[in-house]
C-alpha cells in the first residue's frame, strides 16, 4: 500500500527531470532564445563587472566636469553634476534588473499559489480569489502601483512591492486556467485514489504541468516591471537622488534636452535594449514551451 504512492512520486520526480531535459534541447533550436540569452548574458556581465572596471564613482559630484559631451574619457558624457553617465548607466542596470526580478518573484510566487488554489479547490476559494483579482484589475495600468506607493511611501523597495502586487493577476489567471485542465486528467484521479494529499498532488502532479506558461509569463513580465519600475522613479516616486537609476536619470536629464541630449539618450537606450532583450527571450520561450500561444 505504501509502496505505490512512492512509486508514483518517483515517476513525478522523473517527470520534472524529463521535461527539463526536453525543454533545454528544444530551447537551443530557437533563434529568439539564442539571441535573447546571448544579449542578456552580455548585459548581466556588463552590470555585474562593468562598475568594478570604471574609475568613476556613480554618486560623486564634480562640478568642474559638468555636462561634458561623450568622449574617450567619458564614453556617454557627464550629467549636470559632473558624474560619468556610463558608470551610472551600469550601476542603474543593477537597480533595474533587481526591481524586475524582485517584483516578478513577488507576483509569480503569490500569483501561482493563488492560481493553483483557485483552480484546484474551486468553489468559494476560487470565487474569493478571483474576486480579489477583479479588484486588482480594476486599476488600469500603473495606477495601482502608484496608489500603493502613495500609501507605503516613496522608495525603491516599495516600488518592487507595488509593481509586484499589481502583476499578481497575470499569473493567477493563467495558472488557474491550466490547473482546471490538468485537474480533469486521469492521473490526478489515480493519485487521489492512491491516497495522495491535496498538497502533494498540487506540488508533484499539478505544478509541473503548469510550469511552462509560468516561465513564459514571468520572463515577459520582468520586461514589463523594469519599464514600470523605472516609470515610478521617473515620476519621483521610486529611487531618490543621487541613486543611479535609469528612470530617475531620464527625469533629471529632461531639463537638458536642448543642449545636452546625451544625458537622457543613454539611460533611455539602456532601458530599451534591456527590455527588448528580455522580451525577445520571452517570445522565444513562448514559441518553444507553449506552442499553443505561438504567434503564427
Amino acid at each position, binding site marked *: 500500500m505504501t509502496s505505490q504512492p512512492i512509486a508514483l512520486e518517483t515517476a513525478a520526480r522523473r517527470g520534472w527531470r524529463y521535461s527539463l531535459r526536453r525543454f533545454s534541447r528544444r530551447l537551443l533550436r530557437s533563434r529568439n532564445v539564442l539571441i535573447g540569452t546571448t544579449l542578456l548574458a552580455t548585459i548581466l556581465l556588463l552590470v555585474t563587472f562593468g562598475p568594478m572596471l570604471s574609475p568613476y564613482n556613480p554618486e560623486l559630484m564634480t562640478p568642474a566636469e559638468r555636462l561634458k559631451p561623450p568622449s574617450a574619457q567619458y564614453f556617454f558624457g557627464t550629467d549636470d553634476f559632473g558624474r560619468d553617465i556610463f558608470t551610472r548607466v551600469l550601476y542603474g542596470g543593477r537597480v533595474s534588473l533587481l526591481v524586475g526580478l524582485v517584483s516578478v518573484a513577488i507576483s509569480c510566487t503569490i500569483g501561482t499559489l493563488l492560481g493553483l488554489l483557485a483552480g484546484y479547490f474551486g468553489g468559494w476559494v476560487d470565487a474569493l480569489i478571483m474576486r480579489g483579482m477583479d479588484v486588482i484589475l480594476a*486599476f488600469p*495600468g*500603473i*495606477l495601482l502601483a*502608484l496608489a500603493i506607493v502613495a500609501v507605503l511611501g516613496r522608495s525603491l523597495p516599495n516600488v518592487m512591492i507595488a509593481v509586484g502586487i499589481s502583476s499578481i493577476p497575470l499569473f493567477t489567471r493563467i495558472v488557474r486556467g491550466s490547473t482546471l485542465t490538468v485537474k480533469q486528467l486521469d492521473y490526478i484521479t489515480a493519485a487521489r485514489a492512491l491516497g495522495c494529499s491535496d498538497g502533494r498532488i498540487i506540488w508533484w502532479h499539478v505544478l509541473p504541468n503548469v510550469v511552462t506558461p509560468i516561465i513564459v509569463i514571468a520572463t515577459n513580465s520582468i520586461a514589463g516591471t523594469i519599464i514600470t519600475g523605472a516609470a515610478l522613479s521617473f515620476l519621483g516616486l521610486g529611487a531618490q537622488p543621487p541613486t543611479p537609476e535609469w528612470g530617475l536619470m531620464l527625469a533629471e536629464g529632461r531639463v537638458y534636452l536642448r543642449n545636452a541630449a546625451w544625458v537622457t539618450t543613454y539611460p533611455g537606450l539602456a532601458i530599451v535594449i534591456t527590455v527588448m532583450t528580455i522580451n525577445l527571450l520571452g517570445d522565444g520561450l513562448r514559441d518553444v514551451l507553449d506552442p499553443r500561444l505561438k504567434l*503564427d
Partner: protein
Amino acid sequence: MTRYLINRLFQAVPTVILVSILVFLMLHMIPGDPAQVYVGEREATEERLNEIRELMGLNRPLPVQYLDYMFKAVQGDLGRSLNNNRPVLDEILTRLPSTLELTLAALLIASVLGIGLGLLAAIKHNTLVDSASMFVALLGISMPVYWSSLLLIILLSVTLRWLPPIGQGSFDRLIMPALALGFLSSGALARLVRSSMLDVLGQEYINTARAKGLPGRTIILRHALRNTLIPVVTILGMMFGQLLGGAVITETIFARLGIGRLYVEAILNKDFTMVQGTTLFIAIAYVFINILIDVIYIYIDPRIRYD
C-alpha cells in the same frame, strides 16, 4: 443583450464595493495617524489633532466612516483637497476632458499603426516586411513612454522646430503626447492583428473565395479583415488601461493639465483626499469601460451569444 448588460452590471457590484473599501482604507493604511496625515508636514499640538479627529469624524468606528464616505461619494462629494481645499470631484471633472482627448487621440494612433503593421506583416507573411513590422512591434512593446516622449521632443521640437515642446489646448500640442502614447499600445495590437489575420487566412471560406477567382485585395478587405478585427476588441480594455496609465507619464512630461498629472501631483504633495478620490473615480470608470467593451464585443460578433 439587455439581459446580458444587466447581468454584467450586477456582477460588477462586488468589485466596485471592494474597490471602494480598499480606496477608503488607503488613508488608514498609511503608517501613522490619519489626523496627522490631514495636517501634513505642519506641526500640530495634541489638542489640534483631537479637533481634527472630531471634525473629520475620525473618532467613529471604521464601518461608520466608510458608509459616510460612500454616502457622500454617491452624491458626488469626494471631499476636499488637503492642498487647496477645492472639492475633489470638481478638480477631477475640470481635468477630465484633457485626459480623454489625449487617450482617444492615442487610441486612434495606436489602432491605425497597430492594425496597419499587423495586416502588412500577415499579408507579407515570412518576408522581410513581416520581420521588419514585427521588429517595430517589439520596439513598441519595449519602449517606455517616458523615453519615446523625450525622443519626440528632441526630434520634433528641438531639432526640426515643428511643434511646441509642451503645453495643451491646441492640435499641434496634442500630436507628440498622442504619438508617444499611441506607439506604446500599437506593438501588442500589431502582434494580435497579425496572428489573427494569419488565422483567418487559413480558413476554408478564404480558400473558397480564392477558388472563385476573387482578387487578393477583395479577399483581404472584404472577407478577411472583418473577422480579423474581432479579437482586437478583446484587448481594447487592456489598451485603454495602458493608455490611462501612460497618460500619467505623458501628461507630466508634456505639462498637460489632465487627471494623470493631477494624480501624481497629489501623491507627491501628500494630498490624500485627492489621491483617494482620483483612485476611486478612475477605477470605477475603468470597470464600466470594460463592461462597455464586452457589450461591443457581443454586438460585433454575432457568433457569440450570452443569453
